[in-house]
Structure formats: structure tokens, C-alpha cells
């Protein structure tokens, strides 16, 4: 069985993928994970997950162009420039 191991470097931080190990069962997986990713005090905690339990999603299609979810959906710079010009408050270099 292959297990994916995630480790947390310090309390409060996000767990990050550390690598994978091969073990016959969960008990061995825990010990191998400890030895590989925790014996130098480099982790405060580990998550050990059977690889088969990890589901990957990597297709992020955006057919409707829902740009309101993204930073590039808000062209504030241009609009602010126009608004400042309208109000007569644009900085000198823009005048």
C-alpha cells in the first residue's frame, strides 16, 4: 500500500505534502512516516493518508467566464482614474 504523508512544520501552519511511503498496513505506515518525516523534529504533526483516498481534480474550466471570482474581474485602476478625473482630484502626473 502506498500512503501519502503531509506534514505541519509549526503549529498554526498549513499541512503540506511531504512525500509518499510504502507500508503493508496503517501501523507500519505510521511508523515509517514518523521515521521519514519526523525524527529530526522537523514536523509538529503528520497526516498519513492512503493514496487511494486522495482524489485529484485538475480541470478548472470556466465556460461562463465568471471573472467576478477572480482579481482580474475587477479593473479598478482604469475606473478609479476616470472617476478621479471626473472629480478633478487626479494626481498631477495624470492630468
Amino acid at each position, binding site marked *: 500500500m502506498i500512503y501519502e504523508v503531509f506534514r505541519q512544520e509549526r503549529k498554526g501552519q498549513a499541512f503540506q505534502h511531504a*512525500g509518499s511511503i*510504502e507500508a503493508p498496513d496503517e501501523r507500519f505506515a505510521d511508523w*515509517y512516516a514518523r521515521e521519514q518525516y519526523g525524527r529530526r523534529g522537523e514536523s509538529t504533526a503528520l497526516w498519513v493518508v492512503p493514496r487511494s483516498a486522495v482524489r485529484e481534480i485538475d480541470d478548472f474550466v470556466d465556460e461562463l467566464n465568471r471573472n467576478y471570482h477572480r482579481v482580474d474581474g475587477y479593473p479598478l485602476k482604469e475606473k478609479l482614474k476616470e472617476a478621479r478625473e471626473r472629480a478633478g482630484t487626479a494626481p498631477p502626473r495624470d492630468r
Partner: protein
Amino acid sequence: MTEQEQGFLEYVQSGGQVETDDWMPDEYRARLRKFIEMHGNSELMGVLPEREWILRAPTLQRKLALTAKVQDEVGHAQLIYRVVEDLGKPREQCLDDLISGKAKFHNVFHYPTKTWGDVGVIAWLVDAAAIISQKALLKCSYAPYARIMKKICWEESFHILHGRDVILTLMNGTDDQRELVQEAVTRWWGPLMQFHGNPIPADEDPMLVWRIKSQGNDEARQQFLDGYVPQIWELGLTVPDPALRKDEETGRWHYTEPDWDELMHVVTGHGPKTEERLDLRRNARENSAWVRAVVLSDAA
């Protein structure tokens, strides 16, 4: 080369990285697997020259440190074989090919460890040479390999500290101890100079072309000389190569051409300790087979 292969080549050459499930050309997969497998074999075989000294270490502290180093290296072999497995070759098969003599491992692990001085030189200079090669893999186009290399390089840095500490302790000791170190440096210099391999022009080295490595063999050797020859000299040790000197203008080191025939002879399984160490692996595997059988059936 097909259009898809050409696209892949351009992608990796522009710094692109590949994951396990991504499409990759057969040649790339084959080269990657062979190279990484040899790396795994070297980690596993690399503990044997040091293992011989665990029982003979001069102090308890040294014994523990050496045991920990051996554990680190075996751990590296496990991590690396995992990467090979995801590329399609099971670990059991890697071990079969290793002990049958079909697969290769690094030249330096085919030599005897005569004295405690050799143990120091291995941890200091052999690991230094290895860390230079391994750092050049941190940017490997195959991302899973590059990722584990970060952890491996981090642990190797402890080994160099351990090696330097052993060497400095001996150098601050008696004349006999200093002699021990000098003899070891003299013994290991040839294999160390061969370690990074014969020079291959960058555009003809498939490992560079596919961006599996990011540094040529000769460049790695220059980096090793530049980093470590001054450290050897400052301790009053000498290097057994009268031609060795640095050209201050070009910054390049000149040296006697390493013995490439010896390198080829040794890595193809004819080193002074090749057979003995493979036998040890073979016996260990046979003698521990019942443990695996019991544990695995218990786990299943």
C-alpha cells in the same frame, strides 16, 4: 521526434516540470527511471562501507552518529525507490536487479573502508561530492524527484558536518591520526575525481537535454574542487595529484585526467568490494525473507 515529443522537450527546456500522471516520451521515462534507480541503489549500497565501522567506532557518540547516518541513507533509498515505483518499476524488481549485478551503483561504494580515517573522508568528501550532484537535481524537470531531493540534501548537510568533525578531531590528535587521514585522502582521491563522470558536451548529454540534471559532469567536478581543495589544504593535507592547481584568471581547476577506464571497470561490477557487498545484500535479503513473510501476512 514526434510533434508531441518536441513540445514536451521545449516545455522542460523552458523550465517546465512534469508530474507522475503527465504524458511523457518513452525515452524520457526510461532515462529518468534508470538514473533514479541507480541513485536509489547507491544510497542503499552506500551504507555498507560505513556499516563496517559501526562496531569499531571510537566512541559511543560516533557510533550513534554513524548509525544515524546509515539510517538516513537507507531512508533516502526508500524515498528514491518510491519515485522509481511510480515510474513503473516495483521496488522488489529494483532489488532483484541490484543483487543480481544487473543494475549499477556509484563507483565510490565499490571500495574498501580500511581505517576510521576512511570513514571521515567518506562522510566529508564523498558526501560533499554527492551533495553537489544532488543539488543539481533540485531543479529536475521531474517534480516528484526534485521534491524529495530537498529533504535528502538537508539530511546530507548533517553528514558533511559529521565528516568534518571526525576529520578535524583526527587532525588535532597525534601524528599517527593525521597520517591516517592523509592515507585516506590519498586512497580516495582517484575515485573522488571519477565520481562526477567523464565530461560530456552539454548538448550531447541527454540528462541535460531533458533537464533531468541541471549541471554537466565537468562543472560538478569543478565545483567540488573549488569548494573542497582549499579545505583539504588548510588542514595541512596534500592531494595526490602534482598537476592540481587553480588558474586564477579563468577560475578553472587543472588536474590530471581521472582514470576513466577504472571508473568503467568498477561500475560494471569489478570493484575491489563489489562482489562482497552484493553478497551481503543477497544474504540479508534471503535471511530476512521470513520476517517479511510473517509481517506481510500479518498485515494482510
